[in-house]
């Protein structure tokens, strides 16, 4: 009896400590990056191009715009494909093909992102003979698609069968039922999943190294190299200049704030609003 109580107390302490540890890791990262990075953020940092090596000051405006462009195009390419694939899986996918697609998506989700970079390199960079924003977007879209597919499928499946039946029984064709009844019912979940996935690819560095490549100036279009926040952080952090290190911290802080804001937005979206409780 006594032994059981001791074991119980020990386990409780152990699990509690581990829980605190994982939480404190988050706060340590947040705190450290805020401490190192927040100070260097100012108007010039957000709106200017980098200064030539040796001069102090300058900013990372090109990386902010670059990230927005590369990630934006990746979302534009990836989200529709992911959502439509999810519709297939949820509505028609109880067969061999569905099983295969689901399995492939799970495998893709587990593949290291640098591999996606190599894939996009072979698919876009080699035939176009050069690094490009487009190649970066393709690499990120390839990461995005399986994530969006799987999360959207879950939310589409959560739409009760009774809702589908109600629509079918009104003499509405199945494609309209899916498009105008099922998808809107699942839309907040789908949006949440997509936003979280986008925030994840926004922080990806490896797949951009040999696709988007990076750039110290404004980009010259989709078929040319382009800067992106994670790339700039990476390049500045491994540089020998103190000034660049500070800017790397500031850029990291910016990226972190973005990811945090997106996460909070997504979670708020998923919370049921007044009255109409639903998944």
């Amino acid at each position, binding site marked *: 009896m006594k032994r059981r109580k001791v074991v119980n107390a020990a386990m409780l302490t152990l699990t509690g400590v581990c829980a605190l540890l994982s939480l404190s890791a988050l706060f340590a990262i947040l705190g450290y990056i805020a401490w190192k990075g927040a100070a260097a953020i100012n108007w010039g940092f957000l709106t200017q191009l980098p200064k030539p090596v040796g001069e102090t000051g300058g900013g990372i405006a090109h990386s902010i715009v670059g990230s927005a462009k590369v990630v934006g195009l990746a979302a534009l390419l990836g989200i529709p494909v992911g959502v439509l694939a999810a519709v297939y899986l949820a509505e028609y996918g109880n067969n061999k093909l569905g099983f295969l697609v689901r399995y492939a998506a799970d495998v893709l989700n587990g593949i290291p992102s640098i591999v996606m970079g190599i894939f996009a390199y072979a698919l876009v960079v080699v035939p176009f003979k050069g690094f490009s924003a487009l190649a970066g977007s393709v690499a990120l879209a390839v990461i995005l698609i399986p994530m969006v597919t799987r999360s959207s499928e879950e939310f589409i499946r959560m739409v009760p069968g009774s*809702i589908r039946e109600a629509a079918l029984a009104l*003499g509405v064709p199945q494609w309209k039922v899916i498009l105008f009844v099922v998808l809107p019912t699942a839309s907040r979940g789908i949006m949440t999943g997509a936003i979280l996935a986008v925030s994840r690819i926004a922080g990806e560095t490896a797949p951009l190294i040999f696709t988007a490549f990076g750039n110290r100036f404004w980009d010259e279009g989709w078929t040319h190299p382009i800067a992106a926040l994670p790339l700039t952080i990476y390049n500045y952090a491994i540089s020998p200049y103190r000034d660049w290190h500070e800017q790397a911290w500031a850029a990291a802080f910016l990226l972190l704030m973005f990811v945090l804001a997106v996460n909070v937005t997504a979670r708020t979206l998923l919370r049921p609003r007044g009255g109409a409780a639903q998944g």
Partner: protein
Amino acid sequence: MKMTMIEPIETEKSLRRPEVGAAGSAPVSGGKPVMDVRELRAGYGSGDVLHGISLAVPERSVTAIIGPSGCGKSTFIRCLNRMHEVAPGAECRGQVLLGGRDIFAMDAVELRREVGMVFQKPNPFPTMSIYKNVAAGLTLNGVRDKAVVRGRVEESLRGAALWDEVKDRLDGPATGLSGGQQQRLCIARALAVEPKILLLDEPCSALDPSATARVEELIHALRKRLSIVIVTHNMQQAARVSQRTAFFLMGELVEYDDTRKIFTNPSDKRTEDYVTGRFG
């Protein structure tokens, strides 16, 4: 014995709504069938659940389907608008004629506009307002004319005896209504497509007694406009609202006759046992 079984029904009627009392005794046999079911067999891939049902649904009247749980009542009425096919593995054979046309030769989508259905649990579209729910059958099928839609929505809500309760909150969420209101909303939604036949699968089983009474009144009123087939496991309800009653047992149609006869003087021993509450 046969006198005693009618009594609770009569009491129930006179207690609740004397005006509906007449429903059970209205003469029926004259009405020509709007739907004719012949040798209908259906199942879910592992043997038949319905073993050859034949019955004719009379026009502008209420036909009740009664029987113990699992006897195939839902399967039967879901065949009548081909919602049965939606279930995985579902199969069905036989003939169902709607005004002379074989429904299995028709386009299922077209058929469902003529044969509407209301389900056991109220299932309004959760993302749509009250108005949009009722309008859904029209708007989703391409009716663009706002005035037409608005007119039909009001007419359907009035038809479902819900208009006065919701006319000031048409843009409010449908999920904000009570269970009984939601079920009447579902009836309004089905009415908006102007079906010839309305199938109701235990529409009151999730409702409290007063909401049930309102739906029953509604069924009574709707009978003047269209034909209704209602599944119910509540025999008093069958007696109150229907003119014809079919008794199902283990996938067979045991007896189909005027409601009054089923409840007072059934021909089959099994029907008698069931309606007197000896089993089921």
